[in-house]
């Protein structure tokens, strides 16, 4: 169980996140949706330890991980797939994956095999440099790289950003598949329609606060959400 209570974060001189609380039950898919600048990315970056919060608590499996180093948090089983993929362009696909397992000791062969089974495309491209992959392949690599740390909770920051609609569908089916393999998922998206379709629970964020929450399927049919985020 992952829980955030009363989290506030200052980022770039403004109060980007104000007193938000939500929880992610084990094995579920939870999504935060909202417009640009709502504070979604800041929330994820804070959980990952890249940004320090001003106040509030982040608790994972009973342990308070508020304000810990990124390395500690990855070690605890929470991994971020950063916005805009951010794969390492001058490392090969395989090296990118190995970096994902950097903090782990022991054999990682089985995990590489697991990722290659999830993303057969990456196996074909194993020796290619990350920078030469297409956008969709790079997103697969970013997800695969995060999986290499054997996360219990994987956080994805706009995985559909800048991808063709068909590729977005692929990515979302992969998200569901990963979830079925037992990984809890916290997803933030501007593509609210897709996100709410796969999510168990959804939270709507506006200018730093959570304004609405509910089951994914309920939010899709909610009048306010439809107007604001689903274009109709």
């Amino acid at each position, binding site marked *: 169980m992952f829980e955030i209570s009363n989290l506030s974060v200052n980022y770039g001189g403004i109060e980007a996140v104000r007193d938000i609380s939500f929880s992610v039950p084990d094995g579920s898919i939870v999504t935060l949706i909202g417009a640009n600048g709502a504070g979604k990315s800041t929330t994820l970056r804070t959980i990952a330890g*890249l940004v320090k919060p001003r106040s509030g608590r982040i608790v994972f499996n009973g342990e308070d991980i508020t304000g810990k180093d*990124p390395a500690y*948090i990855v070690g605890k089983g929470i991994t971020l797939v950063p916005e805009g993929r951010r794969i390492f362009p*001058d490392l090969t696909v395989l090296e990118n994956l190995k970096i994902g397992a*950097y903090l782990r000791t022991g054999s990682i062969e089985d995990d590489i095999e697991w990722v290659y089974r999830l993303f057969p495309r990456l196996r074909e491209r194993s020796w290619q440099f990350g920078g030469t992959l297409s956008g969709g392949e790079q997103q697969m690599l970013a997800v695969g790289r995060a999986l290499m740390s054997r996360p219990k909770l994987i956080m994805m920051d706009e995985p559909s950003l800048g991808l063709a609609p068909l590729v977005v569908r692929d990515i979302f089916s992969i998200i569901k598949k990963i979830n079925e393999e037992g990984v809890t998922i916290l997803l933030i998206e501007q593509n609210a329609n897709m996100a709410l379709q796969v999510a168990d629970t959804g939270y709507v964020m506006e200018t730093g606060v959570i304004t609405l929450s509910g089951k994914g399927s309920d939010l899709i049919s909610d009048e306010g959400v439809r107007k604001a985020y689903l274009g109709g």
Partner: protein
Amino acid sequence: MDREKRNHLIRLFVAIAAVYIFITILEFTLRPTSIVFTVLRKGAIYSLVAVSMNLLNGFTGLFSLGQAGFMLLGAYTYAILTMPLSVKQSERVYKYYDCIVQFDTGVFIGLIAAGLVAAFFAFLIGLPVLRLKSDYLAIATLGFAEIIRAIFQWDVLGPLTNGANLLREFKDLSRITIPFTDIPFPPTLFVFIVVGISILLIVLLINSSYGRAFKAIRDDETAAEAMGINLFRHKELSFVISSFFAGISGALLAMFQYTVQAQQFRTVLTYEILLIVVIGGIGSISGSCIASFLYIALSEWWLRGLDMGTFLGIEAPDLFRSGFRRLVFSVIIMVIVLFFSRGIMGDKELSYERFRNGIRRLVPGRRAR
């Protein structure tokens, strides 16, 4: 795949063995004062410091300009430690001061200590400086190197550093012997062995998981951090290791020059190294090595005639006189930077396949197979 890898390793081993055999043969056939030895020794020493700089600039993405400072630390450490006690107690070197280091060590300990002292200072300097980014890091490290040079010339440190005076009569290349014997060690071979081992260690580091983390930091700091790589610790590690080998190359430079003086380790030295790294290709170990030998051969040997009145058989004492070499050299460098902006090797390494393909392209008739 594995077979290919093994073949690759065998070829590499054979190539390296060939270089060492060639050096040994040269040692026993050429005149000891031949210019070839100067080029080989200095080229090898510059290779090591260029590779160490490449580890930092090319593989970790830290733009540091402190190389001359760390070389100075290594050179002084080595010279002070290996200078025989009798020389320290006489007035031959420490004329105006009483040397406070009342012992001497062997070559091996001297070299290791040279690296360790440089590494230790790198560790201390790294604590504040590595929190800076790109240009600021370069400025801070450049400033450090200049400060170190000034401190080593400081009168108060005279009993340790001999002030602004020369250090000499330490275990330089003419005074080293094969262990447990009195037979002189072939000097060029010695330089190549030390440089070879050092570069091998750096290559092993770059190909380890640490090396991968360095490259990840170079490619994208935020993503590397998100993967759980501790940025500061890895930058510090890279900086300390790079400085360790810069220290060793400083010690070798001292051995090669027979004397040490803080004056020699000006910022110009760092720029020379930076130039070699850029010409060789940022991120290419073999590129750095090739570029240093080329650079040294050009500046010390092939273009010498431009300063001496005769070049390529043309005698023109009025044109080819002192300083003209520098002019030509600058033009060559400009041409390289303009037309080979990624350096000789880019970020790739020299390999048999690359070499073979290059030859095939040059000789169109032999493309069969």
